[in-house]
């Protein structure tokens, strides 16, 4: 019978049982390697977190004193952005099990979260990530341009522009939609307060801005004037998407929040469906958060693991997981139909319609770009 054992608080291995040791530990055969460990028992989430914290602290202290024995498991660092925290927590567990089921030793997977741009800078400056899963293709382009860690054609190496899941921008309004907001043109009306983060510091805010721009283009309006009018209705520019959600939901400021679709659903489930409504505009953006291998940090040993980690994001199980976390995934074959059904159809403009990130980033959000001009005129 196959047994799972814990080698350390972070490392598990799976394999055929060879022997039960007198002290309760098990000797197993994990893909040709003999591993000794305690029988693995999943602990409830809450206790595991502080136990892990204490274990990490103790490990940190002891590793300063004695050279820790080389961990047998292959490590993998996934550098990601903020809103994927919940999704990758699930995916890492699922992937580790899948990987060991293929006859490999248990991997040691870590995920780092932060602002997408700051995460890209960390990788440029030497954070030893094997894979990056960021909010914008332009952030990965920057890593490719400023270091030789990622090849320039990274985006063509995985299906769907290297984006295993997509998202879009929707409106979150207060219960009952008191200002009657239905589409982008309602946001430039007098007396409507719009909450959106600063496109200079937030990847999500760049999508908000582009969605408004795309709507204006579609409706034969002057896009620059339209976006300028929209930002005149913005009373606060938070630095990140979560900050804006807090400003809107907790501080009670503003009539409408421009948000990632997954953040909007998260706000509904966390803060109460009776407080907010989601309004889907006629036109929005096809936001493609991409993933890429950091080739410069791959060795013969960890390349198969890192490659599989990204490829399995496209597996039906992982896609179902993404859908459960309110991302629009491609493959719905294993998903809960309810998770699929909650996404309304809408026209989503891909970044190519705006000229691609290489053009959009400097033109709109660079120093002195159109966003700066909007505020310069004030």
């Amino acid at each position, binding site marked *: 019978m196959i047994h799972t054992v814990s080698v350390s608080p972070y490392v598990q291995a799976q394999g055929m049982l060879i022997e039960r040791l007198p002290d309760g530990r098990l000797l197993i055969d994990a893909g040709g390697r003999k591993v000794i460990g305690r029988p693995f028992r999943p602990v409830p989430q809450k206790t595991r977190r502080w136990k892990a914290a204490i274990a990490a602290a103790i490990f940190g202290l002891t590793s300063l004193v004695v050279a820790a024995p080389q961990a047998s498991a292959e490590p993998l660092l996934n550098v990601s952005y903020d809103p994927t925290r919940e999704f990758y927590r699930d995916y890492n567990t699922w992937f580790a099990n899948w990987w060991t089921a293929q006859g490999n030793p248990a991997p040691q997977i870590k995920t780092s979260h932060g602002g997408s741009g*700051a995460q890209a800078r960390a990788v440029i400056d030497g954070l030893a990530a094997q894979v990056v899963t960021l909010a914008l293709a332009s952030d990965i382009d920057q890593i490719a341009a400023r270091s030789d860690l990622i090849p320039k054609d990274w985006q063509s190496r995985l299906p769907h522009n290297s984006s295993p899941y997509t998202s879009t921008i929707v409106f979150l309004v207060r219960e009952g939609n008191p200002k009657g907001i239905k589409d982008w043109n309602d946001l430039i009306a007098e007396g409507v307060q719009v909450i959106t983060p*600063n496109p*200079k*510091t937030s990847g999500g805010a760049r999508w908000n801005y582009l969605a408004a721009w795309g709507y204006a283009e579609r409706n034969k309006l002057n896009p620059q004037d339209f976006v300028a009018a929209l930002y005149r209705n913005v009373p606060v*520019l938070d630095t990140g998407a979560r900050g804006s959600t807090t400003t809107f939901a907790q*501080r*009670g400021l503003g009539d409408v929040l421009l948000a990632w679709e997954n953040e909007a659903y998260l706000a509904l489930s966390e803060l109460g469906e009776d407080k907010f409504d989601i309004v889907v505009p006629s036109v929005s953006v096809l936001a493609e958060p991409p993933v890429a291998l950091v080739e410069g940090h791959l060795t013969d040993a960890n390349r198969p693991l890192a490659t599989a980690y990204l490829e399995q994001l496209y597996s039906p199980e992982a896609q179902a997981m993404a859908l459960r976390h309110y991302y629009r995934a491609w493959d719905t074959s294993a998903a809960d139909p309810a998770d699929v059904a909650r996404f309304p159809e809408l026209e989503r403009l891909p970044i190519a319609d705006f000229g691609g990130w290489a053009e959009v980033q400097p033109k709109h959000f660079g*120093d002195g770009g159109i966003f*700066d001009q909007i505020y310069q005129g004030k």
Partner: protein
Amino acid sequence: MTARSLALRTPTPMPGWGLSFGIMLTMLSIVVLVPMGVLLWRGFIGFGAGAMWEVVNRPRVWSALALSFRAAFVASLFNLVFGVVLAWVLVRYRFPGKRIIDAAVDLPFALPTAVAGIALTAIYAPNGVFGSVLADAFGIRVAYTELGIWIALVFVGLPFVVRTVQPVIEEVDRETEEASATLGASRLRTLTHVVLPMLAPAAMTGFALALARAVGEYGSVIFIAGNLPNVTEIAPLLIVIRLEEFDYDGAVAIAIAMLSISFTLLLAINLIQVWSRRRMGAV
């Protein structure tokens, strides 16, 4: 032995001068001098003074710098007055809960600034406990205005003044005040001519520290500021924005501008202190 090495090795009863000096210099270099040097090198040699000036000399950058220094200055002035009063109360009076208040003064040191920022925003937001009262009764908006920035900076700077002035007040003899009173001085005159001059140098140091802290403050301000360009955008945010644009040189240029202004201000404060010491005699 040459005269020079003799001069370096003045006899001292304290052992370990060479060792402790070496450790001090090494640590200081690693932690402060080298990073600062790299920053300046990157700015002046790597980017060039002219290019840096071009980055800084723009209305938006000037408005952010002016806001940062103006808010920091006003907040530190407030801390100067309030901090001296607080230190005075803590030293001179006994009252229930004194120890708790004394400990609470240090909280802004210990608290992560982001936590402070979120807490202050929650209280002063238009639907917050104080914010709603101020908005309804007086029509004053606090969060997302310069006033909000100012409150956050008061919060982070307060302990500096209190903790530098407190030990000086503890050392002031009550007898000098009594002597002043027996010589016929009024309470106000005693305060302005006897007590405050003795506290002035320490208070100035506290003011300078609070100012220096407030100018560079990011975490607590960012939540309450509103961050609208040209209105409530602080200079540290502009540095972060440059970094988000992957414009390291631009970020370094603004950082060096802030560093130079701060350095000039601190130098001026030090000169005032030297001058006041000379006038008042050694305190």
